């Protein structure tokens, strides 16, 4: 699973900690997500998309290897 969290976070001028606080997770989780080392739960994916005011499929996508 790929995501655009880093790019969108920069566009919205949000730090990792701010995003983490907004979606109720630890900063470490955002680090793992940005490095594509973790696939989030549907709820977390939904919450993150909501912060960026975008549909889930525009933030998260499945690559060929998935």
């Amino acid at each position, binding site marked *: 699973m790929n995501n655009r969290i880093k790019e969108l976070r920069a566009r919205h001028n949000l730090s990792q900690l701010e995003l983490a*606080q907004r979606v109720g997770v*630890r900063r470490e989780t955002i680090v793992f997500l940005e490095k594509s080392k973790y*696939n989030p*739960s549907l709820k977390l994916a939904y919450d993150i998309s909501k912060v960026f005011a975008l549909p889930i499929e525009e933030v998260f996508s499945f690559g060929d290897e998935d």
Partner: protein
Amino acid sequence: MKKAIIIFIVGSMFLLSLLIWALNTRFTGNMGEILMVATLLIVGSYGIYVAFGRVKSSIRKEPFEDELSKRIMVKASSLTFYLSFYLWLFIMYISDKTKLETHTLIGAGILGMAIVFLLTWLGVRIYGLKNE
């Protein structure tokens, strides 16, 4: 808060046991003792690292645990459970070939499990939980 109290109680009990053990043991400086002390120090350091992380999270007003940290713990625990079978099998194998007493072997097994847990926890954190 409830969890922080449990961690504090467990940590205090660990340190107290370590102190009682240290006061009642005559150190001869053999390899087994050095290994045991090193293992305990590693396990103690891990505890301090976790406690430090919790304090940092509390300052940042982050949750102590979230879905990622829970999944890391579950994955590391299940791997430890699986790998511990091999560890105990190895201990059973060497029990006939060494002059070590049973309680020493059991102690080594328990400390070995702690080390296996630390290594799997570290491994899961390094490699991540992709496609889990």
